[in-house]
């Protein structure tokens, strides 16, 4: 009996919402916007990936067709590696506009990624990116609260709530019914979008389809929880407001705080709590530390002088020219090892600051469910900062291997004695370059990302319990008149 009353209220609420032509019009418009953004996103994604593919090929060909050269010259000729966003970025653009997508790799110098879309855009980019995720995260909640602000308050004003109660519906049933009815309607904004995203992401052929399915299967419940929260909040405020119009004002206030105010405030606080050094300060400290550990370019450096002396003693020779291998290659290799280590340790510090900022934002997801869904959605779409750092790591790894491989070639194949003027130059065959494999960017796996950043998901579950609490409280204390 109780069950069927609940079901009745649910289906009545849902059907009332669906009956309104205005509501269906809004739903259709929202869906149209979503599809539009997916379409434009897809075209842009394809253009970018075609461009990057072309440049990647060009870089590889240029690399392979270098003539015979001194290996160290080749190390400075360097390599360019590119990052392509995850195809789900057409659903949730995340931080993609703000991440650089090309890094120039060369010996003993770590360049950072530059050339982000935002860097080439004007102020307009700061209004945000038009993506399905934005619509689903920011606009749909606004619509849900507009649809639902009067669901309880209006009924009370019209005294229909009392009638409902006299017919045997308890306060809990009414509230649960209204929330679930509104929530079911809200799924109309969400459910049709994901199959389209799936289709388009699979067509882009950048990843295997199971990866897309897997990611989308977590995105769906996450948004469902988010909408459940919005629906519960709407009904909660509606049930606890004297009039429908005050419920509306209160809800718009909530929306403002949750969607506009808090996310900015949180980032602002994170930035100030964990300040990032300027590039110039970072590079200066880095340079100082490298010089302290050993400067391969300084002939009187104690670290390298030590190495030289022990090598001369071990091979029992008088000068480095008599060593059986290329001495300057050896020095270079040692220098690379030192500078890379120091760089990585500094980079780690910087990364830690970023991570602290990120953690702050992740924790605040327990204060603002919008932050929870935003962060979770980015992680699931592979457009979060963590995924990007994996690209940086892969690139640095590749750079180090490249530099050391070329140093090895110098040690083995280049004569120790400087070529005389006009004599044969110290170079090695171009074939050597081809043997070095191309850079393959691997997307960060979803399971790894989520393991590193489980907090937004936990926050969503936390909000689910808050929802139940809100519903139970307002159900038990429901004022009928």
């Amino acid at each position: 009996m109780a069950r069927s009353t609940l079901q009745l209220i649910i289906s009545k609420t849902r059907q009332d919402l669906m009956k309104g032509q205005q509501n269906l019009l809004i739903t259709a418009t929202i869906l149209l916007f979503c599809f539009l953004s997916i379409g434009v996103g897809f075209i842009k994604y394809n253009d970018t990936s075609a461009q990057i593919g072309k440049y990647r090929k060009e870089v590889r060909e240029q690399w392979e067709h270098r003539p015979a050269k001194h290996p160290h010259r080749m190390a400075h000729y360097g390599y360019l590696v590119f990052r392509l966003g995850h195809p789900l970025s057409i659903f949730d653009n995340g931080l993609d506009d703000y991440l650089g997508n090309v890094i120039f790799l060369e010996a003993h110098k770590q360049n950072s990624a530059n050339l982000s879309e935002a860097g080439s855009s004007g102020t307009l980019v700061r209004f945000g990116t038009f993506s399905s995720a934005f619509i689903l995260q920011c606009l749909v909640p606004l619509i849900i609260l507009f649809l639902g602000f009067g669901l309880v308050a209006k009924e009370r004003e019209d005294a229909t709530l009392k009638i409902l109660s006299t017919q045997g519906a308890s306060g809990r049933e009414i509230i649960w019914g209204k929330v679930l009815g509104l929530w079911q309607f809200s799924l109309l904004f969400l459910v049709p979008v994901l199959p389209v995203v799936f289709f388009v992401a699979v067509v882009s052929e950048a990843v295997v389809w199971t990866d897309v399915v897997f990611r989308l299967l977590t995105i769906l419940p996450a948004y469902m929880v988010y909408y459940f929260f919005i629906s519960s909040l709407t009904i909660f405020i509606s049930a606890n407001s004297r009039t429908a119009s005050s419920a509306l004002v209160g809800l718009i206030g909530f929306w403002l705080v949750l969607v506009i105010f808090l996310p900015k405030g949180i980032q602002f606080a994170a930035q100030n709590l964990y300040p990032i050094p300027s590039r110039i300060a970072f590079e200066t400290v880095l340079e100082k530390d490298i010089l302290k550990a050993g400067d391969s370019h300084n002939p009187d450096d104690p670290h390298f002088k030590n190495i030289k002396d022990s090598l001369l003693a071990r091979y029992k020779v008088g000068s480095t020219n008599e060593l059986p291998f290329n001495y300057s290659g050896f020095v270079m290799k040692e220098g690379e090892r030192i500078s890379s280590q120091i760089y990585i340790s500094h980079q780690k510090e910087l990364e830690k600051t970023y991570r602290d900022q990120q953690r702050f934002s992740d924790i605040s997801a327990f204060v603002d469910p919008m932050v929870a869904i935003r962060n979770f959605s980015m992680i699931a779409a592979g457009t979060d900062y963590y995924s990007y750092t994996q690209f940086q790591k892969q690139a640095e790894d590749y750079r180090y291997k490249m530099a050391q491989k070329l140093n090895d070639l110098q040690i083995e194949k280049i004569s120790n004695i400087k070529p005389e003027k006009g004599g044969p130059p110290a170079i090695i065959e171009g074939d050597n370059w081809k043997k070095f494999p191309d850079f393959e960017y691997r997307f960060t796996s979803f399971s790894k990302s989520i393991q590193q950043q489980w907090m937004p998901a936990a926050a969503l579950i936390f909000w689910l319990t808050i929802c139940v609490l809100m519903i139970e409280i307002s159900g038990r204390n429901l004022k009928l008149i």
Partner: protein
Amino acid sequence: MKNYLYKQFYRNKAYTIALLFLFLAGMMAIYTGKKFLDKNQEIISKTEQYQKESIDKNVKYHKDDLGLILYYIKFNLINETPKLAALNIGMRDIKPSIQGVTIRNLEEQRYNADFYNPANAAVGNFDFSFVLVFLFPLIIVAFCYNLISEEEESGRWKLLSVQSSHLGKLVDAKLLIRFLAVSTIYLVLIAIAIVWISIPLNLPLIVFILSGWLYILFWFVLCRWIISFRRSSAQNALILLIVWVGMNFIIPMGSNILIQKYYPVQESLKAVMQQREGYHNKWDEEKLPTMEKFYTAYPQFKGFKVEENDEFTWTWYYAMQHMGDLEASSSSKQYTEKMQKRNKTAEILGYFLPNVHTQLTEAQLAETGINNQLEYGRALQKFHEEKRLSFYPLIFSGQNADAVNWNLQTTKSFTNHLSIDFLKIFLPYLILIISLTILSQFKFRKLC
């Protein structure tokens, strides 16, 4: 009568709270701006010191090799940040206000941005312009959406219409009270910012204040028009909110994605690749063609000859470096043009959307917009060339470190020459405000 309306407004707690909220948000924004300026200032002052240290160190290590000293030393050019930037941070958070370049090829160095957390950048700054553009309208809407409908819904409207023959005037008086209240908050915030950040009282500031104030006026006039249709409170609220969301999110975002699509800036990638080919290939090629190109670009250095069989010389080295810039120059130029086109499109959009217009105008006045970035980019290029040309003869003639007066090699600043086009700034506001006033005037005449 006015006195009574005045009291009625301020007795309502919700209005006072809303005004307070606006004030606090504004204060937070001013604080953000202050913080930004301080950090910026700190970076700049530290950079001066770093540059000096770097010069000292390199001069000490490589005293006899000027070419090597200048291989390492970075010269910094400051993009001067006016105090007004505290109120509109614009792109300055992701584009550095100071950049250092060596005299090697520029293309490789010019895109190096400062560190920033992309997550912070994506959310955007909570600066004063944000509060003005996004939050002020919401409060204005909340103040005005039910000015007529509330009276109608409570049944007072009929009573009023019997008693008064100028209902329009009554509504206007209410609007005026609200406008004065919001304007006061706006001006108080600006005054606080001026004192706190010590913003100089100059023309850009006055234009900045005026444009923001016209933006506020625009929203009041828009509300006046919407409520004159005498729809229900809920409908008015919905319509105004849709306008707000559409104007602030959907249209700018949609336009941005289209701008990115129609003006893709792949040229920057291309420029990076071309400079790499332009420079690095020269190691494997004959020396004389490189030198020929270099002499064509800078005939004044024809005297410094390089022979094909010469070993490494700095003359050849820096000539090779310059080839990187030369070969990337057309892509680099195209890139700048694309950015200009992107900005132009946004400006045109701004003629129709006062919020975009306000953002762009204020960014321009605060020198935090794309135009400033482009000007600074040009200045950096010029700075780089001047440095090169002054050092080349010394390096090429094999001088040592003493040939340069290092004390003069301090950081330099670039000042943007702001040209304010009053017509372009104020006309879009005025056209919208006047036409909305006229439109609502028609409706207001028929009110009773």
